[in-house]
């Protein structure tokens, strides 16, 4: 069960819900304060096309060193008040934890050098890959795969990481199906039961590692869930109303990391971040237009409205006319942050926030459910739920209602196809039985396949 249950909102007043400020700001020894008023850039970069194996690993290390140097150099030149670097390890660096650990050391060494010599304050977020998948997966919480993930976390925590995150995948396979068929019951089950149980176990252990090594358990993201639907919706493959409702449901799941002791900043690609911030008060990292190098979205501006770190998701190392891509992304993020911080300094941050919001929120349902006022309305409902399943259902229902209200009062545009799906999702929600056991039994009976084995989650 959850260690902490959030039964109240940390932010109740719309005027307190703004970028840069979080009720539970985090202070670091180097003087950086996340959520204390300043938005910092979080730069994330990855390898160019190459294989990672015994023969190439030294080349990969070299790439990471050069990318980090480029980013730190550019950040220093642009006089940033602080910088966060995120390394999303590539799969081979979790399958071989020693490679992920060595990468952490190399990146941190460069960051330390810049801190010592040039006064560039920085923090390192390490995101191991959740490799718990495949035919040889014994169990989600024990065996080879689990050990690899934990060993990577531990090694990276001991060797330079300041923040720990993961894009965890418990329940993903079921959710994939839910998305492809817009099957609400399956989606609710995957998030409210399967993913929820996995998040509890996983984050209990990540928090333990962070405590032992005296670093920060930062947070998770529904990348494997609502980002799949968001990307599909942006490509016109599924309705945007589904991706919006999915996102809100995912907030309940991602927040379980915080229930277990994660204290933020939540991970950038979790577009459910505003909900996490409103409910738990922890600072969040967000990405939007700045992440167009990685994937498309319809919420590029609104994503920044309540962000405490502003990120580019991930860019592969390539040369462009302006320099190497990680440096270019750094520059773009720095200017975005400067502008936001300047609005704050002049007392106009709410105006800036509202412009970020208004420029997107009307055009897309997923953008709409990120609107701070809508977030607060829905978050208020979510916390009434007693179990994760109940909260997931409330989240979906409240999202349907807010979207419908938005459409009816003219603050959200939806075409007929979208409206049809909104009605369909609503009626699917109605048909989910209230009795939790009955629901679980029914879901297990109809969804146990090669790809989803409830026994691997100790369910049934």
């Amino acid at each position, binding site marked *: 069960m959850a260690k902490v249950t959030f039964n109240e909102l940390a932010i109740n007043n719309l005027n307190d819900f703004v970028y840069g400020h979080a009720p539970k700001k985090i202070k670091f020894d180097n003087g950086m304060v996340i959520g204390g008023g300043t938005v910092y850039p979080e730069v994330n970069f990855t*390898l*160019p*096309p190459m294989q*990672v194996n015994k023969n190439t690993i030294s080349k990969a290390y070299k790439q990471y060193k050069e990318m980090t140097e480029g980013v730190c150099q550019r950040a220093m030149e642009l006089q940033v008040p602080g910088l966060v670097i995120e390394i999303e390890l590539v799969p*081979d660096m979790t399958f071989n934890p020693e490679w992920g650990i060595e990468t952490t050391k190399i990146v941190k060494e460069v960051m330390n050098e810049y801190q010592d010599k040039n006064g560039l304050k920085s923090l390192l977020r390490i995101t191991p890959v959740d490799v718990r*998948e*495949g035919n040889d997966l014994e169990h989600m919480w024990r065996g080879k795969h689990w050990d690899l993930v934990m060993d990577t976390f531990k090694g990276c925590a001991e060797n330079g990481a300041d923040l720990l995150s993961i894009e965890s995948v418990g329940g993903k396979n079921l959710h994939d199906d839910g998305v*492809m068929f817009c099957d609400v019951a399956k989606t609710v089950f995957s998030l409210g039961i399967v993913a929820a149980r996995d998040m509890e176990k996983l984050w209990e252990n990540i928090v333990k590692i962070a405590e032992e090594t005296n670093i920060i358990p930062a947070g998770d993201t529904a990348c494997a869930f609502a980002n799949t639907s968001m990307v599909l919706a942006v*490509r016109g*493959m599924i309705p945007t109303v589904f991706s919006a409702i999915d996102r809100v449901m995912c907030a309940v799941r991602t927040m379980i990391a915080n229930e277990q002791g994660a204290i933020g900043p939540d991970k950038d690609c979790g577009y459910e971040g505003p909900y996490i911030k409103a409910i738990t008060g922890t600072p969040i990292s967000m990405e939007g237009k700045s992440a167009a190098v990685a994937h498309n979205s319809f919420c590029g501006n609104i994503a920044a409205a309540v962000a405490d770190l502003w990120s580019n998701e991930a860019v592969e190392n390539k040369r462009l006319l302006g320099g190497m891509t990680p440096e270019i992304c750094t520059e773009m993020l720095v200017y975005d942050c400067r502008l936001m911080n300047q609005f704050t300094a002049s007392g106009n941050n709410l105006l800036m926030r509202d412009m970020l919001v208004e420029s997107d929120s009307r055009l897309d349902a997923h953008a709409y459910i990120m609107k701070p006022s809508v977030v607060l309305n829905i978050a208020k409902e979510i916390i009434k739920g007693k179990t994760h399943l109940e909260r997931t259902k409330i989240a979906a229902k409240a999202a349907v209602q807010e979207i419908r209200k938005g459409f009816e009062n003219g603050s959200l545009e939806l075409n007929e196809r979208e409206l049809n799906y909104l009605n369909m999702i609503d009626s699917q929600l109605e048909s989910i039985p209230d009795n939790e056991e009955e629901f679980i039994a029914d879901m297990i009976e109809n969804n146990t396949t090669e790809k989803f084995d409830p026994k691997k989650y100790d369910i049934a």
Partner: protein
Amino acid sequence: MDREILNELTVALQKGDAIKTQKFVKIALKKGYEPEQILTEGLVSSMNTIAEKFKKKQIFVPDLLLATRAMNAGIFILKPKLKKQLFSPIGKVLIGTIEGDLHDIGKNLVKVFLERAGFEVIDLGNDVPVNYFIEAIKKFKPQILGLSASLTTTMYGMRDVIKALEKEGLRENLLIVVGGVPITESFATGIGADIYDMDGTKVADKAKEKLKCSNF
């Protein structure tokens, strides 16, 4: 004979209602329609309409998938009554995501597109090691191999598969199609693939052209 029942079948299929689709197929059979006519005028033609709408972005993936499911449900009833040759697929495809890569939504969609176009698709899933591809090709003898990769660190795994096929003498009569978010036309050509398709919607047509197959 009144066409009412075929019209109802069409509506049921396009709504993705598998139960009603089966019901109307049974009624049509009782009314004396030839199974071949129910198949072509009821199921296949409505499925073609659905596919057209999808290409034009007038409907969503779930609509396509539910209609496909309904069509398969209808075919299930018809199958024992049909002349065999109507059902021989136009080609066999083996598809999978490269080792180390867990992204499979894109590959799953491409699988649906290919099946829709009449190919038989054997799906090896994600995170597939090179030797699994080789073994499966020996076992299933497909005409087409589809490879998917979403990571810059796994895309070169495609080249490894192709090299291994060459080494095993299995490359020659095999059409290799590749795709995934970091893959480009020039990368595909560079590693010796035959077809690249950015979003998977044209892969069936391109493959058919190369195989010189006729339509379903």
